[in-house]
Each structure stands twice: as C-alpha cells, then as structure tokens.
C-alpha cells in the first residue's frame, strides 16, 4: 500500500497536494482586509520590517526585481520608485485575490510603466534563468508547500551576484518575549481576526503556521543547501521577525 505524503497546514497534517488549496482559501478570505489586519496585528511595525528589507535589498535604478508573495504591493511600490523607468518590478503572488488587491492599489497610487503582475507559484517560477537582480519574499515562504523547491527556483532565476531576501516570522530570542508572543498569537490574534474579518480560523492558521516555520538557523541552512552563499540573517523586534539574505554565486 502506498503511503500518502503529508505536510503541515498550521498544526494540522494535510495531503501535500491539498496545502496550496487550503492556503489559497485563507488568503481569498483575508485579502480585502489584509492591510488593515497587518496594521492591527503588528501595531504598524510591519511597515518598519518592510522598510528595513527595502534598504537591505540594495536595489537601485535599472534593476530587475521580483517580489514573490507580494500581496498588496507594499514592497513593490517602493521598488518601483527605486528602479526608476529603466528598471522592472514584477509583483507575483499565487493568490488571485491578493494580486488583484495589490494591482488595484498600485494603479491607484500611480505606479505604472515599470511594474508587471504575475500569478505564479514560488516553487515553479515561470522566468528564464539569471533574470533578476533581487528577489524578495515577505511573509510568504511559510505558506509554500515545498520550501526547498521554492528556494532552488528562486536561485535559478536570480542573476549571479543577485540577492534573495526572505522576510518572515521567526523564533523570538528571549523566553519572556516568547511567552508574551504565544499568548498574543493564540488568544488575541484569532479574536482580532473574528472582530475585523469575521474569520478567526484564518488568523489561527497564521499563528500556527508561524510556529511551524523553520527557525533562523534552520532557514539559513536551507538557503545554503539550495546553493546560496553568504547566507545570513538579521533578527528584528527580538527575533519575532527575521530577514534572511543570500547571494547567488
């Protein structure tokens, strides 16, 4: 008898082929209020995490940037300004609802000409080899079914010398902070989700998926195994979030 392969969806084990569908369900549900919820959940600090990521990207005029799981386009908006009219930004997301929100928001803010939108799976990026100077994936990697496959796919489409930045929730570095953070994530977060979006389950998944995501050192090793060099990470807000950086040799 063949054993069915499973993976985690929060704390739940699901069939590998079902995870993408379940994750898509979560993001279709929260897309409309994603930004409001981000502000509420992080007290606005997610803007600082993203700002730090933009600065660490080293993106400048003429660069080609791929913003995977770009969702509502926070990073793409800044990248579009940095790369200028000679550069190119691709806002990619597997979820059509998130991508629609992002595209509408960027058009409303007058971003056009140097930005394109692509509904793509991070594991199978539909771009030629050696295309991008920089790839970012912010708060997206933990939702990907096969993270190693996605990292290898990102390495392939990066130019040699190009950099990958992974902004993701991680493991708090202090025990006291971890306890407070656990209480907040499992008690308060689903409650806020219920009040604002009437969807406590999606936000419970968010908290659970963060706990299931590899910690700082593990993700760094995964990046090295995928073929990145100079892999390193910076903890932010006590390690609640970490920015991993790797270079394609």
């Amino acid at each position: 008898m063949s054993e069915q392969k499973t993976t985690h969806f929060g704390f739940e084990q699901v069939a590998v082929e079902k995870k993408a569908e379940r994750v898509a369900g979560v993001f279709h549900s929260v897309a409309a209020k994603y930004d409001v919820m981000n502000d509420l959940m992080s007290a606005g600090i997610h803007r600082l995490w993203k700002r730090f990521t933009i600065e660490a990207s080293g993106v400048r005029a003429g660069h080609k940037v791929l913003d995977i799981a770009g969702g509502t386009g926070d990073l793409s908006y800044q990248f579009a300004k940095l790369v200028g009219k000679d550069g190119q930004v691709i806002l990619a997301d597997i979820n059509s609802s998130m991508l629609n929100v992002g595209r509408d928001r960027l058009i409303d803010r007058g971003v056009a000409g140097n930005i394109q939108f692509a509904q793509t799976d991070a594991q199978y990026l539909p771009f030629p080899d050696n295309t991008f100077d920089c790839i970012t994936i912010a708060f997206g990697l933990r939702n990907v079914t096969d993270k190693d496959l996605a990292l290898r796919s990102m390495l392939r489409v990066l130019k040699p010398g190009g950099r990958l930045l992974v902004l993701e929730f991680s493991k708090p570095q202090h025990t006291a902070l971890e306890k407070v953070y656990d209480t907040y994530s499992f008690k308060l977060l689903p409650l806020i989700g219920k009040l604002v979006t009437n969807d406590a389950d999606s936000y419970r998944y968010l908290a659970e998926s963060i706990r299931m995501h590899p910690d700082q050192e593990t993700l760094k090793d995964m990046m090295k195994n995928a073929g990145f060099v100079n892999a390193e990470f910076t903890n932010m807000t006590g390690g609640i979030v970490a920015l991993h950086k790797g270079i394609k040799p």
Partner: protein
Amino acid sequence: MDPMFSTAALASAEKMINAALVYDPASRIALAALEPQVLAIHITSPDTKVFVLPGVEGLELHGNYEGEVTTQLQGTLPALLGLIKSDRLNLKDSGVQLFGSTSFLAELQKILKNVDIDWEEMLSQVFGDIIGHQGAELIRSKLSWTKDRVTNIQRLTSEFLTEELRVLPSKPELAFFNAQVDELKLGADRVKARIEHILARIARQGSEPHNRNKNS
C-alpha cells in the same frame, strides 16, 4: 541593538519632514529637481550613516543605500550639528569633511533654509477657513517676532563681545589677520622653494667636478 530602533527613528524623522513639506509645494518641486542625487551623512562616532534622497514626495531617509552617492559629509555628531546650526559657507576647521559634489549640497541647503510652510493651508484643513486664517496670522506674526528678536540678540551679543569687552576681534580685524596669515604662508612657501632650489644647485655644482674627474 535591534535594527528596528534606527529604522523607526529614520521613519519618524522622514514622516515629520515630509508632513511639513506637504504645505510647501515650492520646496517640494525644488527637491524633486534634485532627484536622483544622494547625500550621505557619515557620523564617525558613533559610526552611523544616513542617506538623504530628495524626490517628488520630499526627502527619503535611509540607513543603508548601495547606489551612487553624490555628496558625502563626514564628521562627529557635534561637528555635523554645529555645521547645520551655523550659517557658514565653508567647512574649514569645522571638523567636517566633504567628498563629492559641493553644488548639490549647496542647492539642498538653500532649499531647506528657505522652507516656507503654508500654515494657513495646514490649519484650514483642520479648523476651517476662518479659524485657519486667524491661526496662521498669529503663527506668522509670532515667528516673525521671534526671528527679529533672535537676530537682534545675535547682533547685540556680537557687538558687546567685540566692541565693549574687546575679548573677540571684529569681522574686519579677523579678515585682515587671515589675509596676513595667508600672505605669510605664501611668503614662507616661496622662501622654502627658493632654499630648495639653491640647495639643489649647490648639490649639482658639487657633483660636477667629481664627475669630470671620474671621466678623465
């Protein structure tokens, strides 16, 4: 230290500056014209860099920037603050070093010194036209009064120190002294060059008979 502290500080400063610039469209247009030039401010102690990027929306402040920098100012925090507060036009003895384009810095300095916030527009949006106008008039008169008083105090203090107490030289005296020092330095340089020239000639003459003897 958690990088969020410096990121938050820069984000707050940027937000405050640009919130004020919203009410000064002329300065915003002038700043947009400076794009894509970049000013790097390198504080040597504690070792920190801030990058200032002028653009359509005002100023962007970054803690990290890997593109080309147009101008870099480098010095200690007190030296850099002293430069910002003073009206001086040169960096001599300021403790601040400048690398790159001076014209970009001068242009940026000129725009920021001439920022003229439209208080009336700002207050009208919150309190309505009538109260906004009266509030703006009050702010304008108070600012003008403060500016006059500060100028007067500076002038009186300067006169008291130079004319009454005679503990500081006046500007013309200082300029005369500087000119004399420059002249002395030029004279000393000329003497040094002359001495070197003479020494070289003596050395040449000293070696010529020896060479001749050697050849014969």
